[in-house]
């Protein structure tokens, strides 16, 4: 399936409170395995919980795990937004 078809967007662009299915992770193997260990894996549902004021760091939730990550890392994660 083409990326365009499923409307893949970066985790950064997922609106606050919205949920999405993860389709892409960082290419770097080290970073990728850290993402997986935190629960950010292909096929899992991630939700944007919060963005700090003035900052680009965001808080997301996968399962029962909360994760803080910078926009730079979030940009490497491709998600398909789920309808509310």
């Amino acid at each position, binding site marked *: 399936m083409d990326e365009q078809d499923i409307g893949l967007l970066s985790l950064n662009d997922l609106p606050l409170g919205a949920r999405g299915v993860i389709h892409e992770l960082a290419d770097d193997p080290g970073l990728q395995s850290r993402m997986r*260990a935190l*629960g950010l894996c292909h096929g899992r549902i991630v939700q944007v919980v919060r963005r700090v004021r003035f900052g680009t760091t965001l808080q997301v939730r*996968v399962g*029962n795990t*909360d994760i803080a990550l*910078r926009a730079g890392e979030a940009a490497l994660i491709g998600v398909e937004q789920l309808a509310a």
Partner: protein
Amino acid sequence: MKRLALLGMPNTGKSTFFNRLTGAGARTGNWPGVTVDLLAAKVLLGGDMVEVVDLPGVYNLDGYGDDERVVREFLGANPVDGLAIITDATQLDRQLILALQAKSFGLPGVLLVNMSDEARSLGIEIDLPALERQLGLSVVLLSARNGEGMPAARQSLTSMLHDSQVQGAVSPEAADPDLADKAYQLWSDTVTVPTTLNDTLTTRLDRIMLHRWFGLPLFFLIMLGVFQAVYTLGAPLQDLVASALDWGRGQVLEPLVTLLPGPVASFILDGLYDGIGTVASFLPVILLFFIFMSLVEGSGYLSRAAYLTDMIMARAGLDGRSFVMQLMGFGCNVPALMGTRIMGARGLRLLTMLIIPFSLCSARLQVFVFLVTALFSPRAAPLVLFSLYLFSFGTAFLTAMLFKRGLTHKEPFLLELPPYRLPVLRVVTMRAWHEVSHFLKKATLFIIAGVVLVWFLTHYPFDAEPASMETLAGTLSIWMEPLFSPLGIDRLMSITLLFGFVAKEVVLGAMAVIYSSGDAGLAAAVSGQMNWIQAYSFMLFVLVYTPCLSTIAVMQQESRDWRYTTIAVVWPLTLAWVMSLVFYQVATYFWG
């Protein structure tokens, strides 16, 4: 003796479990192939003595972090009879991956599913027999905090070790990328979670603690509280240690050494004993610092503090935890430097350790308050002090900007925000105690050697007046004069800088000796000797150059890299010199 290694992701309650399993007898020690000390204890399991080793908490075994490397190196160089893999029952969806990875080494293992109390109240149900069957490991549900399930855990570990035949080191290879999917599948098959997990205590607390407007003020309030707790409780304890040492000196040591020749007596009193005193004076704050920091960390707040302050620090290549340690450094740099160990990534740690010494600690504050009171008007004094704090932050920021390229260039920021939890006091105090003994073990010799060296410089030749121009220090100050006179720092004051290298606490005492003024007349003596421009230049230098020998000892102990430690000493010295020079020359030109 059989050996059991404890493996688990961070925040799974690994320390709490270790503490419960092993009690008070744990010690940190060296291991072949590993560059950091690990905590280990001997316990009786089913009639046999077993050595239990607490490995650092890691997210995976193939990762790039410092802690991951330590675990790999440990398992690679030290035969282990079995692994206890500890996980958080509420986050098994992602934590089973570590169990699968560990299993792939072929080592016997037991899966300990901790936080059973939380899982129960969240309504999470785990089909233990199915999990055991599919995983091929025995699984025990427990709560390390309240002790539930501990007998079963002991039982399982005992029988695993009893049956264990394998005794060989393993080399963890790169993880199979499908492992995460397998782990998730395993979890879906064996764990049921109620559909809405949303309004947990943590979520509700976070609405306040991470609030858009109140989050940062709350952070500063909490830090202020911790800071006050550590250092206001620490001060009387330090005084107590100091008076005990004074008593020992006056009542025991001085009468004893009167029989010895002068130089030997002086060596024992002003060299060795003062060195021991320097080491001892840090123990109360290190203990308190780690008690309170472990509370903040164990409660889950520390990573939130990092998240909240991340935007301030990201620019400088640091993260929020660096900021917390930098703030704590305003009390005392030494425990703050040791506290950087909570950051897994080495580059980040090294960069943070480079900036902490710029935090204006209480020992320097004492010198500044004295000089500012002696040389500035009451109206100017607070502003002068405030400007020093600005320089403190400024130099730290500048240093981070300059060195981030080399140290933290590409480090990602991806931080777990663990649920809020109540720390166990016994675990917290134990941890603090281990930090104190670690400091004693690693830094004592270095600090005493440094104190003895400065003693020698300021006392040799022994017929000269201590710290006078006739001593080695005096000679040194003559050589250094071309360096210091452009800063407005005269030879006498440059000798006090030499003392200040040992500890800033002794600077005022050294001045009193050098100006032979006694403590009472010192203010008058000093204000007669220098003008405000010289005093400010001197303070700038004191602010920026090496805070004390103990910080150097700790930087070496933590980095294990002499090159790094050398840079960490030379760079602030250079910066101190340049800043004082610029200030003195410019100020003299305009106001001199």
